[in-house]
């Protein structure tokens, strides 16, 4: 709450995190956690069979993974820190206080992982012949290390949805082993393995172009890999679905379709099921009849995987609303337990970086805008995605002047009508000022500039 208000008004603040984080998940699941075991398995297969070609192919997969993970992969991970710090510093600041040692441990494991992947890649050719088995063992250790980084971060992700016993006990262990933890891990581990398979299928198109026979056998290898993990992926998904808090699960229709298309929920679910089935079919086909697999079948699973991952992460983040930390901090960055004070004494009076401390007769519009910036802009914009004026227009139309009383009434009961919205965090007067400000936007366009361009406006007090 008491931070200069960073704000992006076209794409919206959520998109900043979403773009960086989804890219990071795609890379760390498909190119690291899933890919390293697959590469090691193929390297081992090459050693076992004595066929050099498998070793070469595995090394080429690893080359792609090395380039991508050490650049885009690593930096989007840092990017999640940067973007969450900008968009919801109260939430990430709180998470760090709770989970500091979990993240510190994760860091130690990351350093290990980076050293190991540097060694695994750079020493591939040198650790050959009599040292090949040592190199394979290095791959195994790296696989476990990679998986460990996921096993730690999932504890924190699960906490955000359901802190479980932490709300009472306030201890890291209670927060880490929350009700979501094992189901989510059981879901993500096989998911990463399947994603790596989809990636490897795609890479086969390029890396086996000159060797038909290898292409078919490599396709079969990858397909078998995927078929081993796909049932576990299903089981993990079901388990995870079962532990999602019920009131959050009710948001799925809006999560997947947005409010505009929320009644297409069952259609979307069918399409998701079909997409998943398509991956299973390609894997079966590639396993049983790789010679007849058409070109598009090497590309399709990867495209589907990207789409499904983006959809899953969007759903996971959305259904958690109105909270960013379940039961503890609302998505607007305001603590649940601060609400009584704010509703009694005012949001503006208790915010450091606003230009008006209280609503008066002269400053209603500016105060209303200040309230909007503090209470709404973590998720909403004025002129872009999820814009509030656009929502008002959808609700009330443009034919009549919008009524401040109606908007105020809506703001007052919004969290009952839209359960993923936090309650209004201020006094009745502040709410009314906000309503007047929003109504003014029917005819007058305003600009919501963040602190990154316009600085902060601490009032003259």
């Amino acid at each position, binding site marked *: 709450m008491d931070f200069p208000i960073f704000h992006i008004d076209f794409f919206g603040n959520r998109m900043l995190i979403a773009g960086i984080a989804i890219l990071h998940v795609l890379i760390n699941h498909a190119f690291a956690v899933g890919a390293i075991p697959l590469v090691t398995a193929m390297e081992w297969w090459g050693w076992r069979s004595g066929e050099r070609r498998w070793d070469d192919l595995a090394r080429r997969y690893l080359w792609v993974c090395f380039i991508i993970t050490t650049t885009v992969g690593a930096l989007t991970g*840092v990017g999640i820190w940067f973007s969450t710090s900008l968009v919801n510093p109260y939430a990430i600041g709180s998470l760090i206080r709770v989970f500091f040692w979990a993240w510190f441990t994760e860091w130690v494991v990351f*350093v290990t992982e980076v050293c190991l992947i540097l060694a695994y890649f750079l020493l591939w050719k040198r650790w050959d012949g009599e040292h090949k088995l040592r190199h394979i063992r290095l791959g195994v250790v790296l696989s476990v290390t990679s998986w460990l980084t996921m096993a730690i971060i999932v504890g924190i992700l699960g906490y955000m949805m359901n802190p479980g016993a932490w709300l009472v006990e306030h201890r890291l262990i209670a927060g880490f082993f929350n009700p979501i933890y094992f189901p989510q891990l059981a879901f993500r581990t096989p998911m990463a393995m399947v994603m790596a398979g989809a990636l490897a299928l795609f890479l086969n198109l390029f890396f086996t172009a000159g060797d038909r026979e290898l292409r078919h056998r490599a396709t079969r290898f990858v397909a078998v890999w995927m078929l081993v993990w796909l049932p576990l992926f299903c089981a993990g998904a079901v388990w995870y679905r079962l532990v999602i808090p019920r009131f959050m699960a009710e948001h799925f229709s809006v999560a997947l379709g947005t409010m505009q298309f929320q009644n297409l929920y069952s259609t979307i679910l069918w399409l998701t099921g079909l997409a998943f089935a398509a991956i299973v079919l390609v894997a079966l086909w590639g396993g049983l009849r790789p010679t007849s697999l058409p070109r598009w079948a090497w590309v399709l699973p990867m495209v589907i995987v990207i789409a499904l991952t983006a959809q899953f992460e969007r759903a996971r983040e959305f259904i958690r609303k109105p909270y960013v930390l379940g039961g503890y901090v609302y998505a607007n960055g305001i603590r649940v337990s601060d609400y009584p004070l704010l509703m009694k*004494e005012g949001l503006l009076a208790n915010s450091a970086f606003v230009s008006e401390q209280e609503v008066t007769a002269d400053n209603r519009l500016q105060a209303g805008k200040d309230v909007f910036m503090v209470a709404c802009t973590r998720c909403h914009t004025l002129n872009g995605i999820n814009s509030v004026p656009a929502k008002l227009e959808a609700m009330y139309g443009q034919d009549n002047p919008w009524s401040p009383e109606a908007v105020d009434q809506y703001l007052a009961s919004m969290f009952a009508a839209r359960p993923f919205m936090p309650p209004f965090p201020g006094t009745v007067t502040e709410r009314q000022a906000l309503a007047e400000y929003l109504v003014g936007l029917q005819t007058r366009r305003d600009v919501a500039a963040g602190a990154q361009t316009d*600085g902060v406006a601490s009032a003259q007090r």
Partner: protein
Amino acid sequence: MDPTIPKDIPLGLPAPVLLLEILVVVSFLMHILFVALMVGGSLLTVTLELIGRKRPEYDRLAHLVGATITVNKSLAVVLGVAPLLILNTLYTVYFYSANALTGTAWILVIPMVIAAFLLSYAHEYSWDFLAEHKGLHLALGFASAAFFLAIPLIFLANVNLMLYPEVWDQVRGFLSALILPNVLPRYLHFLTACVALTGLFLVWYAGRSGFPAEELGELSRARVRRVFYSVALVATAAQLLFGPFLYITLPAHAVSWGMTLVITCGAALAVLALWLMWKEVQAPDEAIGRGLWPLVGVLTLVVVIMATGRHMIRETAVGPHRDLMAAHTAEYMARVHAAQDYVLIPGGLGGEALPPGEAMFRKVCSSCHAKDQRLVGPPLTEIVAAYPGDPSGIVAWARAPGRKRMDYPAMPPQNLPEQDLRAIAEYILEQAPGT
């Protein structure tokens, strides 16, 4: 109580402050060492390649130096996570505020580092492939180096601004934070240190048995090491200028006598290191490099002392503000606690006791449904007409609304208990009798 003082996160620190402070200094030193090797490596690779246009053995040397960037850059990034995490913990409000105020540049660090890394891979691993296209190849190197030169400015502007809460309301974006004292003097000091540290690193690197000195033709191993020693020497000598410049331009609120004493000790040891480097540059071929480890020992001490001084600057700069912030936070939390039994009834029922169906209608439904005209959804008169004498029908629709009117926004499902929905439905049907 000054209301412009922000409030801190009201959760306790996860470890004793002293432990966190030691961790941040140590982990930051590890990070900045590899950052220096990465930045210095990039600058030296390009410089050597430029020299190499006339003298091919320097081109070969440049290629060997460039290979070190691959490893050093990845260690630089991963080692940066710990100091970032601890800064977030120890200086939460300060760091995040500075981030927000320089937000555009701050988030651009991510794509810029990705670009720098991909370009350095392209530069290093296309060396032979682009041997006939030196112009293009050099351009890749320059581009990568340019990013490595620009990115530290963003970090420096941030960690400087975070120590300066008194000027936060004067900052308008990254550029205004960049010209605050004393970002640019720090940048000079940092760049010079990058070159010096990389020079010494390469003295070691070129001395390893695995280093293919035989590929360098006329350039003997000893000559290479002497060249790198000279680079380190010149850079460290330049610090005798940039160091004091940095000290003099420190904003006054960050300076203390204790820190001055500490920095002076560090500077004295740095002069000793300079003398040791001079001896090494003068040493005969067969003895060169023998003095490396004592030199590294002295410099490690210098760096640890300087990092300690830096930490003292941090504490001096934000200490008073942080005390105010702690007091303000405590006072705020006391008020939060006292207000816990305050309950606001949304919509303001004015104290009358309404029948439950009507009360809930007003609370949940009235923001979208008015009596006889469209507000957001259809008016009650239409609803009553659609469900004559049929409260169950209204309940079913409210639980799982379909979409009859495409020019209206979709109604969100209302998941209230059955008896509540029933009471609301009956109230609705009472509102427009006889239709």
